[in-house]
């Protein structure tokens, strides 16, 4: 039993190092990690006590890891959600794949200045959001989906996000 605990602790620690890790759906999900199913694979994500999220830090005036251009990254995430989370009554995960071009055209409403530059910044943010499990970018197909981390959002905290996405203008009809 104690050996088992050590192995489990290691598996949970590994999930912290690697961020979101996917394993085949046939593989067992180590207890103490949440398995977010995704077709033939399962994403392993950390479990936090009592459903808390890192947002708790705010209540204690404790800064989280600084994030470069956090606002821009979150606006790109919002644009992606606008395109991928189409059935807003459901949970954001797993969402649907949407063309990157659609996401960029939604994002254009949220950015100012040189349009080409904004698109390129946004593309960079799509990649970073994919690295951290918030989105899944398929560069070959030029599509994007919501990432497994959105499954960690407590359901009851999503009302304002849903409102926002309802208001947000959709992608240019050209691509619809």
């Amino acid at each position, binding site marked *: 039993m104690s050996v088992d605990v050590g192995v489990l602790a290691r598996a949970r620690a590994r999930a*912290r*190092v690697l961020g979101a890790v996917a394993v085949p759906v046939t593989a067992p999900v180590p207890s103490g990690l949440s398995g977010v199913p995704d077709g033939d694979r399962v994403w392993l994500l950390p479990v936090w006590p009592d459903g808390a999220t890192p947002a708790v830090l705010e209540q204690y005036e404790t800064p989280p890891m600084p994030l470069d251009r956090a606002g821009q990254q979150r606006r790109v995430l919002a644009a992606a959600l606008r395109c991928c989370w189409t059935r807003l009554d459901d949970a954001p995960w797993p969402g649907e794949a949407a063309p990157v*071009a659609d996401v*960029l055209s939604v994002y254009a409403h949220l950015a100012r200045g040189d349009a080409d530059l904004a698109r390129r910044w946004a*593309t960079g943010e799509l990649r970073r959001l994919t690295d*951290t499990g918030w989105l899944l970018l398929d560069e070959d197909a030029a599509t994007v989906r919501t990432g497994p*981390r959105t499954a960690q959002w407590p359901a009851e905290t999503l009302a*304002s996000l849903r409102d926002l996405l309802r208001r947000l203008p959709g992608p240019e009809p050209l691509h619809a």
Partner: protein
Amino acid sequence: MSPARETAGPAAASLDDLLEGEAVLGVYRQMFAALARDSGAVVDDPALVDVAETLLAAFADAGEDGLSREQMRHVCRRYPAEVFENRLRVLRGLGAIREVFPKPHQLRYRASFTSVVGLMFVRRMMLDGGQSEMHRLLALEQLNVADPRMTAAQARAGADGLARAFRLWSVELLTLTHGTIEELREQAPKLWGSEEIMLRAERLHGAVLRRWPELDRSCTDLRAALYAYGDASRRAAARLSDSAGTTRNLTLLPPETWRTFARTATRDELAAVLDGFVFDAPAPWHESSAVVAAVADAPRAVPARPAPPRASAPDRGLARDVGAATAEDDRLREVAEEVLRGRDRVDVRAVLTGGWPAARRLLADLSAAHLHPGLPYRLVWADGLKADPSGSPTWLSSGTFERHPR
């Protein structure tokens, strides 16, 4: 210096002996003149040695004309007059500075070569407490042993001297090892032997024994002293290693060793240091309310943009699919901003540092950015080249790369 005087000879010495004794004392006095407070004792303020060094350096520059008294005072002008006078008196008294009369009624001064050598030796000892001096001594002895003119007596004297030095070092190290950790940390690197010193000493020992088997007793002594020293070094190192703290033991390598490592190590050698280290990478958390807030704070494009003409062209979106020309502009902009790093101008020489091929590529990019009408950068060249034979590239024009307001 009084022990030297005692060994200078008994009363019944011949005139030759006396002269030789005086000559030896003369060398001693000159060697340590820089450290002498007055003719009878060593300085009690290190700044006094600086005066001597300043003077000796000025003499070296002056050449065979030497210096006049006024010139000496001038180079020592930052020292108080009485300090200068005192130093001059002592240095003259010990023969480090001599009066010469190149012409009648003209008084000049010259410096002694021995004093400069002595001072160099002293400075080196102060820098690393005899470590590198020991390297030099061992290297010299090794040469001597190979010299056909070397006699067995000389070899024995050399071996005995080294054995004494190693024994004294062991004693001092062991005393330190049993003392406070702070003192040990400060003193040990000046005293303990690196593996290289031990290797050299053992090699020397082997060479002496091969050439003069009859010196086996001296060699046994040297070997014992060497082992004792190695053991004392290990003990000191073990005690320090056991009380390492987080970074304290980094003081135990001299800064130059660290610089050399940083300068010469390959990528893999550098990376190997952190082999086996795992660092945290907690992914950023975007609370859903933070996403909402970010959109609310968006720098909205106030006048709704009229649809730009090219928006009708289908665009698959990713960077590599965007027109090649704009991609190139963007790359140049990236290169330029990378070079400027938030500043408005940089010295071109300061950024062209990555070896010639890399420098040439970067220069080409900076020139392209300069020539590009749509990009707010320019290269401004000044006259003149700066050559740096050790650098790469070895020469560079001086110029600046700057941002200009559009």
